[in-house]
C-alpha cells in the first residue's frame, strides 16, 4: 500500500508540472482529488484493512493529500502570474502622449507679489488691514500733515468727487491713521495696508492713473531708524535675493520725519553699475521714515511716549523691477498668455 501511494505521488508530481492553463489545472485537480479519483479509491478500499493498517494508510493518504494540495497551489500561482504577465504585455500604452490637465487659475501678477509680501509681513507680526478707496480728504491729507494748500499736495494731483471733500485716495496712508484711531487701547501696532491708489496721471508705459501701494506702520516704544533698516533688510532680501544690500537716502514725506528713500543694491549688476540702476549700483524701491509726531498725535498716540516707522512700496514698480516688465499696463490688461507664465513658485 505504501508503495502504491508513493507511486501515485510521483505520478501526480510529474503531471502537475505539465499543467499549463487554469483549465488543465482544474481538470487535473478533479482527476486526482475528485470523488472518482485514485485517492478516493484508496480510501474506499480501506474498509477491508485491519485497524493498524487503517491507521497507517489513513496517515499516508492525508500526507499525500497535503503534498498534492501544496503542489497544485504552487503551480496555480505560477500559471496565474504568467497569464497576468501576458495580459499586461498586451496593455502597453504610449506614455509620451500629452497629459490630462486640470485647470488651475493664476493670481494677477500684482496679487502674487502682494501675497508673497503679506506672508512675509504676517510672519513678522504685521496684520494686513485694508481701508476705503473712496476716501475723505480729511484722512487722505489733513491727518497726514498735509493741510489744504500744502505744496506737497501738488505732487499728487488727486481725483475728487463731489464737493472736494471726497476723493479716490492718492495713497494707502489714510489706512494707517484710521487704524491708529481705531486702536483705542493705544497698544503697539504692526500693520501693512496693501491697496489700490489713484493719481491724475496720463496712462503710458511708465504711468498709470491707478496703481497699487503697500504701506507698513509700526508703532511701539523706543523705535528708531535702525529698526526700520533691519526690517527693510529682510524685505529686500526676501523679494530681491539674499545677497541684496540696502541703504537709506534722505528724502521728504509730509507724514514722516526723518524721511528716507529705500535703495537696494542693483540685482542686475550686483552694484557694479548698469543701465537698470543708471550706473549708480543702487535702485530705489520705496520710501519710509519715522512717523511724524503730528501724525502720531492725530492718530491719538502721544509722541512723547511712542515712536514708530512707516514705509511704502509701489507694487507695480517692485513687480516691474523683479520680473523685468517694461509696460505698467501689463498688470491691467490681464493677457492670459502672460499671466499663465506666472503660475508657479520661485526659489527663495
Amino acid at each position, binding site marked *: 500500500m505504501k508503495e502504491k501511494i508513493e507511486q501515485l505521488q510521483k505520478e501526480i508530481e510529474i503531471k502537475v508540472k505539465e499543467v499549463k492553463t487554469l483549465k488543465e489545472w482544474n481538470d487535473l485537480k478533479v482527476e486526482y482529488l475528485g470523488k472518482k479519483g485514485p485517492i478516493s479509491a484508496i480510501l474506499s478500499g480501506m474498509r477491508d484493512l485491519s485497524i493498524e493498517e487503517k491507521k497507517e494508510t489513513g496517515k499516508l493518504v492525508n500526507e499525500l493529500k497535503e503534498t498534492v494540495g501544496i503542489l497544485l497551489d504552487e503551480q496555480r500561482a505560477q500559471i496565474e502570474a504568467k497569464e497576468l504577465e501576458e495580459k499586461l504585455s498586451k496593455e502597453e500604452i504610449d506614455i509620451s502622449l500629452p497629459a490630462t490637465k486640470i485647470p488651475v*487659475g493664476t493670481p494677477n501678477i500684482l496679487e502674487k507679489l502682494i501675497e508673497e509680501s503679506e506672508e512675509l509681513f504676517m510672519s513678522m507680526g504685521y496684520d*494686513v488691514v485694508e481701508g476705503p478707496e*473712496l476716501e475723505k480728504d480729511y484722512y487722505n491729507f489733513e491727518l497726514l500733515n498735509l493741510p489744504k494748500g500744502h505744496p506737497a499736495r501738488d505732487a499728487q494731483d488727486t481725483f475728487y*468727487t463731489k464737493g472736494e471733500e471726497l476723493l479716490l485716495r492718492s495713497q494707502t496712508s489714510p489706512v494707517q491713521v484710521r487704524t491708529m484711531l481705531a486702536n483705542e487701547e493705544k497698544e503697539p501696532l504692526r500693520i501693512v495696508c496693501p491697496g489700490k491708489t489713484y493719481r491724475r496721471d496720463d496712462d503710458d508705459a511708465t504711468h498709470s492713473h491707478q496703481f497699487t501701494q503697500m504701506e507698513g506702520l509700526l508703532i511701539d516704544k523706543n523705535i528708531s531708524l535702525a*529698526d526700520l533698516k533691519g526690517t527693510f533688510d529682510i524685505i529686500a532680501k526676501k523679494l530681491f535675493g539674499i545677497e541684496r544690500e540696502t*541703504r537709506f537716502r534722505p528724502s521728504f514725506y509730509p507724514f514722516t520725519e526723518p524721511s528716507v528713500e529705500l535703495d537696494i543694491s542693483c540685482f542686475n549688476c550686483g552694484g557694479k553699475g548698469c543701465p537698470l540702476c543708471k550706473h549708480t549700483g543702487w535702485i530705489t524701491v520705496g520710501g519710509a521714515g519715522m512717523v511724524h509726531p503730528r501724525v502720531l498725535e492725530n492718530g491719538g498716540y502721544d509722541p512723547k511716549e511712542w515712536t514708530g516707522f512707516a514705509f511704502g512700496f509701489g507694487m507695480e514698480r517692485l513687480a516691474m523691477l523683479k520680473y523685468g516688465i517694461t509696460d505698467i499696463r501689463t498688470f491691467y490688461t490681464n493677457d492670459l498668455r502672460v499671466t499663465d507664465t506666472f503660475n508657479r513658485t520661485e526659489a527663495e
Partner: protein
Amino acid sequence: MAISMNWVRDYVDYKDVDLKEVADKITRAGINIEQVESKYIPNLVTGEVISCEMHPDSDHLKVCQVNVGDHKEQIVCGAGNVRTGIKVIVALPGAILPGDFEIKASKIRGVESNGMICALFELGLEEKTEESYNRGIEELDPATPVGVDVCKHFGWDDTCYTLDLNPNRSDCNNHIPFSYEVAAVLGEKVTLPDITTHPVKETIDGKLNLKIETDNCPMYNAKIVTDVKIGPSPEFIKHRLEVAGMRSINNVVDISNYVMLEYGQPLHFFDRDKLGDTILVRMAEDQEKIVTLDGKERNLSKDDIIITDGKKPVCIAGVMGGLNSGIDENTKSIVIESAIFDSYHVRYTSINHELRSEASLRYEKGLNYEYCTMAIERACHLLEKYADAKVLSGTMTHDVMDKTPKEVTFTLRQVNDLLGMELTKQDALKSLDGLGFEYEVNKDEFHVTIPNRRLDVEAHVSDLAEEIGRLYGYDHIESKLPTGEGRPGRYIGLVADRKLVSKRLRSLGLNEARTYTLISPEEDQLFRYHHQTPIALLRPMSTDKSIIRQTLLPSLVKTVEYNKARGTKDVCLYEIANTYFNEEEEDTLVSIAMMGNYLTPTWQGAKMKVDFYLIKGIVEDIFDYMGLKNRYTFVKETTPDLHPGMSAKILLDREEVGVIGRVHPSVMKDELYVAEFSLKKLASKKIKPIKFKEISKYPSVTKDMAFVVSKKVPAEDLLAQIKKSGGRLLTDIHIFDVYVGENVGQDEKSIAFSLTFQDPNKTLQDDEVMKVFNKIISDVEHKLGAVLRDK
C-alpha cells in the same frame, strides 16, 4: 532748472574738488542731483581774422586766415559778418560742440578748412532764432587777447547740476540756498554777495505812496532807481541765466531774474513813468480786468492779490506784471518791488489763470523775509554796476511779518533715539556748523535757532534729527529688528474672506483679473442691475475714465474681449474689488466671467464646455465653501444686459446678493457667462462650526425614478417635493438625466432622479423603502402635475 557751479563758487570758496564727487555727497545728504554736466569745450580759442577772401567755388563762402595765437589757420566761413580785423571764437579740430558735433579738419568745396568760426548759438550759449542766426558769428571785444582758451576767459568752463528736488527743498533751485548744501558737505562757509550801493542824496520820501490793504501781503519793500541805461547784459550774467534755463533779454530784466536765481526772491520792476507815484496792494474785485505782459486780458476775482497804482491794477501779485507798467527799451526810472505774498493765494491765482511762472512757483513755496530785504539791495547794487542806475536813498517798507525765531531745545539722546545711531556731541555740532545753524550747548542740551531761509525745518526735535542725521550719513546706521511682544499677523476683516475666496476660485481654474476702478459713461450703462446713482469725478482726465464703477462686469467683458482679440478663446476670469454707492457706502464684489472650454478637450475625448450650469456650480461651490450650503437659491429674473432666458438673481437667506447668467448677445455674441455677488453680504452671515457626523453603518438602497412634467415646472420644485415626501429615510438625491424630444410632449420634459435611502439605526426592509417610494410618486404626480415615466 540747473545750478551753475561757477556761480556757487561766488559764495563758497572751494578749490580743487571733483565736482562729480561733490554732487554724490550732496545727493547722499538728501539733495538729489540727477545730472552733472561739464560746459567746458576744449580747443575753443580766441582768434583774429587777418584776411578774408571769397571762396573760388561759392558765392557766399569766404576763405579766412585766422591768427589763433601761436600760429594761423585757414578756415572757410559762411557767415555774412565775417571780415578782416574782427576778433572771433574759433573751434579748432578736436572741439566738441553741443549736440556731439565734433570739429574736424576737412575740405569745403575743394578748399582746406581747419576749424570753425562760431556763433553763440552754436556753442549752446544762445537760443537759435532767426535773429541770432542772421546776426552771424560772435564778434568779440577788440581788446580780447588772441589765442586764449575761450571757456576759461569768459567763465564758460562751468559745471552744472541738474536737480531733482523733494517738494520741501525747492529753495535749492536758487544759488545761495543751494550754496549752504555745498558748504555743508565740504565743511566750508557761505559768503553772501555784495549788496552795498552808493545812493544819491535824493530820497524816495514823498516820491512813492505805499499802501497795503490786504492781510495777504505781510511784507512789501520798494526802492526807486533813475537814469537807467538799457543795454545788453555782461557775458557772465548772460551765461548764467542760460545755464539756469532763462533767456537773456537786457541788462535790467536780466538783473531782476539774476537776483531771483540768487536768493529765490522774485522781484518786480515797474516803469516809474508809467506807474506814477502810488502803489496800493489789495484784493481784486470780481470782474476787474488787467492785460498782463503776455498781452492777454485777465478777468480777476476777489481771491487774486493785485498791485494797483491807486486806481487800476498794474500787476497780479507774484504771478505776472501788467502791460501798462512794464519795462521797455525806453525805461529810465524804475520802482523795484521785493515783497512777500500769501503763498496759498498766489498758488490759487496761478492755477486759476493758468499762469505758472518762475516767480509764482517760488511764491507758492513760501519766502524768507531776510532775503526779501537783501534781494532789493542786491538788485540796486547790480543796476548801479551794469545799468548805470542812480539809487535813491531810502526804502518804502510795509512789514507785518511774524519774525518769531524758530527755536528748539533737545538732547543728543533724543536725536540718537530717533536715528538709531550713536552720534557724539562733536558729530552733531559738525552737522549743525556745516548747515550754518546757530546753537548754544548747555551740558547735554542743545538750543538751536533755525535759520529763516530754512522754511522747511520745523522747531521740533525730529526735524533737527533729520538735519543732523542726513549730513552725518545714514550709512552709519546698524540694522536691528524691533523687539516687543511677538505674535503672528493675520488678515483683518473682509481681507481674510477675500483671500479665501480668491484662492478657492483659482483652485477652481479661474484666473484673477485686475482692472481699473474708473470706467466710461457707456460702460456705466451696462449691467445696471444695481440701480445705483453713478459717482462721477469732478475733473476726470478723460471721459473713458470718469465714473467710479458699481459693477465689475463691464471691465471683465472688456478683458474677455481683449483676450479673444489675441487668440485666447477659452477665458475663465474673476475679479474681487471694491465698489461704491451713495458716495461713501462700500461693497466688495466677486465677479466671474467664463467662456469657451473649461477643460481643454483631450485626445481621449473628454471635454467640458462652459455653460450656465458650470458657472452656477462655481458660484455654489463658493457659497458652500463659505459655509452657506442650503441657504441660497437662484431665482429666474430678467437682468439688464443678460440673456432673458438664461439669467437669475442669487438669493441668500432670501436677500438678493447677486446675479448670474449669460451675457446678452447684443453685448457679446460669444457664449459668455457671468456671475457677480457681494462678498460683504456673504461674509456677514453667521455660520455654524464644522461638526463630525457619523456615517450610518447600515446598508443603503438606491432607486431611480423619472417624471414627465411641463417645461414650466422648475427642477428645483420637483427636488423640493421629493425631499419633503421622502422624509428622513431619503438621504441623497440627484438628477442624472433631463430629456426633451419626441418621446415626450412638446411642452414637456422628462427628469430622472436617483434616490438613496438609508436608516441610521437599522437595515432597511424592502417594504419600508417601497412605502416611501410610492408616497413620493403619488405626491409629485398630484402636486406638480407630473407623470411617472414608463409606469
